[in-house]
């Protein structure tokens, strides 16, 4: 245990000391800061209110002066300017665009003046709907209908949804997608570092000294532990930074609408952490195995391909079955050890899995972790001193069988 901790401490210190690690961490933190400030940045560069204004010109007085009551969040200005004057204002940036309304026979025509057809926004569609509704109201008032008759013509339309699945599903799709991606990022990138660390030791030939100083088991366990702790702290740093940035710089109402975190309970946080650990260890041991079979850094990518594929399959199996969370495939993904770390926390968030299912899934994951650790340690012990070209699967199996 002492050796495992010594290896873990050295590996963690070595990883944090790497320039590439520090630079990538700073870049991601900067991206989080910039990303959370995008609405503010857009706002900063478009502070001129007049350029956001749409002028509405009622040439034939169809609205009878009611346009100022148009219920819209758009910046509008009721105008009587001529086409030429409007065009000049749009060109000068004093107006965003203009809508000229006039009647030809039975047709009410909305003619748009925009600076550029390509960049004309979809706001015009919203305004058109609102203008049509207001026009109807003006015309209906002329008919002097009773309240009952008005209610019969324009009833309130209420929309509701009901699910056919028996299970009650909660949660928020955006929060779930983010949780799934964070877990994938954490597990995939941290585990990948294990492979890189092992191959680097092989390339620098230090491994022969290392294996005479401690056991292969201590090396693999220590490395995965050290990198896992650093990776977890890095992810926590990103998550905390993202939360602080979101609450400092983003619209709270919009945040609450997008990311309803009411389902993110302490139980879910514990389950997520529990899944991160064995989930990370399973993949880290697989990467340790592939890392020990190559001697050159340029061979790491190809040696890791099968594990990358397995990670992708696990992640996408969980991610795409989110669209049918009560289906059998999502249930399978929640139990399958290579996809359960990405899937089960989401099912827990949706309130779909019982404690029994969670325990079964964690049990399967831990069992797989132990098996993979055993295989990886054995192959690492036999492969670590083999220098030369990348090994094929036949050789790897042969190494496993070697005493």
């Amino acid at each position, binding site marked *: 245990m002492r*050796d495992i901790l*010594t*290896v873990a401490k*050295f590996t963690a*210190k*070595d990883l944090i*000391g*790497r320039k590439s690690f520090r630079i990538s961490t700073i870049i991601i933190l900067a991206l989080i800061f910039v990303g959370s400030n995008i609405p503010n940045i857009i706002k900063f560069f478009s502070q001129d209110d007049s350029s956001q204004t749409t002028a509405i010109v009622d040439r034939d007085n169809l609205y009878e002066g009611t346009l100022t009551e148009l219920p819209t969040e758009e910046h509008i200005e009721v105008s009587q300017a001529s086409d030429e004057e409007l065009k000049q204002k749009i060109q000068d940036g004093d107006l965003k665009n203009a809508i000229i309304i006039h009647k030809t026979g039975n047709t009410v025509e909305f003619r748009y003046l925009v600076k550029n057809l390509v960049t004309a926004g979809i706001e015009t569609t919203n305004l058109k709907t609102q203008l049509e509704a207001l026009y109807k109201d003006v015309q209906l008032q002329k008919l002097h209908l009773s309240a009952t008759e008005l209610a019969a013509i324009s009833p309130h339309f209420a929309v509701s949804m009901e699910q056919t699945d028996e299970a009650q599903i909660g949660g928020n799709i955006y929060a779930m997608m983010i949780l799934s991606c964070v877990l994938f990022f954490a597990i995939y990138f941290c585990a990948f570092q294990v492979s890189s660390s092992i191959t680097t*030791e092989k390339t*620098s*030939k*230090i*491994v*022969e*000294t*290392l*294996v*005479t*100083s*401690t*056991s292969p088991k201590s090396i693999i366990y220590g490395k995965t532990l050290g990198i896992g702790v650093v990776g977890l702290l890095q992810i926590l740093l990103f998550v905390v930074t993202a939360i602080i940035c979101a609450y400092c710089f983003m619209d709270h109402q919009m945040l609450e609408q997008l990311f309803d975190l009411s389902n993110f309970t302490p139980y879910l946080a514990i389950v997520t952490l529990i899944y991160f650990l064995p989930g990370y260890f399973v993949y880290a041991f697989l990467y340790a195995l592939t890392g020990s079979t190559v001697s050159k850094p340029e061979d790491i990518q190809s040696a890791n391909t099968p594990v990358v594929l397995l990670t992708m399959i696990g992640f996408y199996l969980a991610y795409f079955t989110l669209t049918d969370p009560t289906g059998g495939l999502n249930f399978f993904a929640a139990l399958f050890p290579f996809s359960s770390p990405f899937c089960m926390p989401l099912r827990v968030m949706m309130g779909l899995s019982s404690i029994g299912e969670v325990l079964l899934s964690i049990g399967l994951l831990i069992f797989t972790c132990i098996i993979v650790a055993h295989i990886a340690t054995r192959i690492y012990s*036999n492969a670590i*001193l083999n*220098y030369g070209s990348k090994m094929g699967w036949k050789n790897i199996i*042969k190494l496993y069988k070697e*005493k």
Partner: protein
Amino acid sequence: MSLKLENVSKSFANKLAVDRVSFTLEKPGVFGLLGTNGAGKTTTIRMLLGIINKDSGEITWDNHPVDRKTVNFGYLPEERGVYPKTKIFDQLMYFAELKGMDKVAATKSIQEWAKKLKVEEYLDMLAEKLSKGNQQKIQFMTAVIHDPDLVVLDEPFSGLDPVNTELIRDLIVELVNRGKYIIMSAHQMATIEEFCENILILNRGKTVLQGNLDNIKASYPANRLKINVHVDIKEYLQKYHLIIENQAGHNYILKLQDEAIAQKLLSDLIKHQINLDKFEIMKPTLNDIFIEKVGAQNA
């Protein structure tokens, strides 16, 4: 304390890499492990240190099976390596801690060995900034920093300049004087001759020669004659059909088939009042013995 290897064998993919190798180190000193490339030296060392498992045989230290926990050993592998992006002090501390030392003792030992090896000023530097020679000295420190009982040195002098070679040589002598058991593998036969009392020569996994170096050399007849004189003695050499192997002025090294001829030549030279600075009947060097034992088979 004693180290004992008995009939140790190892195969890789049905190819015998080491075949029933046996040797014993019964007292402190340097044991020479010789062989051509691929002879099985590194495999023997790796089995001895428990890096790889042996197929058969026994390896014991004080009559107990050798493993990392029972034997305090240090190893300088042939494949030199350091953590390039890590400070020298940090990596030395790492290996010292893995060998069971606490921080205080490890720091003291690192500073002592750094002073002996004249690398004190490099302790706070990244390993990649050091020359290969200095990196090798750091590796030597890794092997001895924890005061091991058994030290395995695989080609300890390769790549070192004469000054650093002398430095390491003195430290090996110091280790022997402190009662350490050392196994040294080297291609430079002069080095082995200088340090080793006992040797073992491997060829294609098999032991072709082993024992006390002086006894081995004594068992071989003299094969060279060294003469330093001030006059030309070629007519005498021709008289006794002696072939010149090397000549520098009037200093000769001659091939010798029979020691009796050397005695006759000496009598003849004295008789003709030729002053001799040196007249030495030379035993074969370890290099000669090595080439005789393994050269023909690997030619």
